[in-house]
């Protein structure tokens, strides 16, 4: 596709023309590599299949590199990194919180959350499974958890898939869900602040330990400046 980014200069001056080549994200090879990467990203958020997930993402990455080396026109790497980051983050949060919401009586669920609770967040250790919904007994945490598992993270995974396919709605939904995630972060931190002593005064790693673990999930604040710098008209309908 050829687009004219800047038009006529004064007479006699050559017109500047920017040639935009559309990546072939719908080719079977590209789709296959994407399936490996997205599948691996979601598996890495499942606790049990974590190592398999990393291998899956690596296989997808190698397939894309191979396609690029063979002269294929692949999607820019920055889009791949941002989409994968979104997928792994949403996968870890959605699957992790789903276990607390739906599988809090299982051995895996209790092992993971008792450990996480003792290490970095007492909300998953003290009074665990004491309320009607089970799992964490801290009400604010439960509200964030249910709203995120049912709404924000499924939307975010769907938008990451469309972002990978370079669809306009994928870009738009990545922006929208990033703002939703920023809203979640704000509510989550206020909730933590209100129960600070109970949750962080009792853990082995303390408040710094909590941040050392959770800081890397700051996807919306990292992604929004990038997402707003993309040219929407170059994305597919």
């Amino acid at each position, binding site marked *: 596709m050829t687009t004219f980014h800047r038009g006529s200069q004064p007479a006699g001056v050559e017109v500047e023309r920017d040639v935009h080549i559309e990546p072939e994200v719908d080719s079977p090879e590209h789709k296959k590599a994407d399936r490996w990467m997205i599948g691996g990203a979601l598996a890495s958020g499942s606790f049990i299949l974590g190592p398999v997930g990393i291998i899956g993402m690596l296989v997808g990455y190698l397939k894309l590199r191979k396609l690029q080396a063979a002269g294929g026109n692949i999607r820019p790497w920055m889009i791949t990194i941002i989409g994968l980051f979104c997928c*792994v983050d949403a996968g870890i949060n959605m699957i992790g919180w789903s276990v607390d919401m739906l599988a809090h009586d299982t051995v895996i669920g209790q092992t993971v959350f008792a450990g996480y609770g003792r290490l970095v967040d007492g909300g998953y250790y003290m009074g665990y499974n004491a309320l009607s919904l089970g799992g964490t007994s801290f009400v604010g945490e439960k509200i964030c958890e249910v709203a995120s598992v049912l709404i924000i993270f499924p939307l975010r995974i769907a938008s990451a898939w469309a972002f990978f396919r370079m669809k306009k709605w994928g870009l738009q939904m990545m922006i929208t869900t990033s703002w939703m995630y920023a809203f979640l972060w704000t509510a989550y931190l206020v909730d933590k602040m209100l129960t600070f002593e109970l949750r962080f005064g009792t853990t082995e790693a303390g408040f710094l330990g909590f941040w050392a673990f959770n800081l890397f999930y700051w996807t919306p604040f990292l992604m929004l400046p990038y997402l707003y710098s993309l040219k929407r008209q170059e994305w597919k309908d």
Partner: protein
Amino acid sequence: MSFDGPAPVTYMSEADALAEAAAERKIEFTNKVLGIIALACLIIISLQGCLLLPLTIVLYGWQ
């Protein structure tokens, strides 16, 4: 002008064109830095996904 429509044709002085090119370079550099940070975070959270369960089992055993 539609938001999704073709890029507009504009008249631009040389100074404006240079300023725009400099701004685009700045955005590209910022995006490159963001990409490196995103890649580092991606690797760290993927490892967290792998290690949390084994770590809790080693530290506290099965519940």
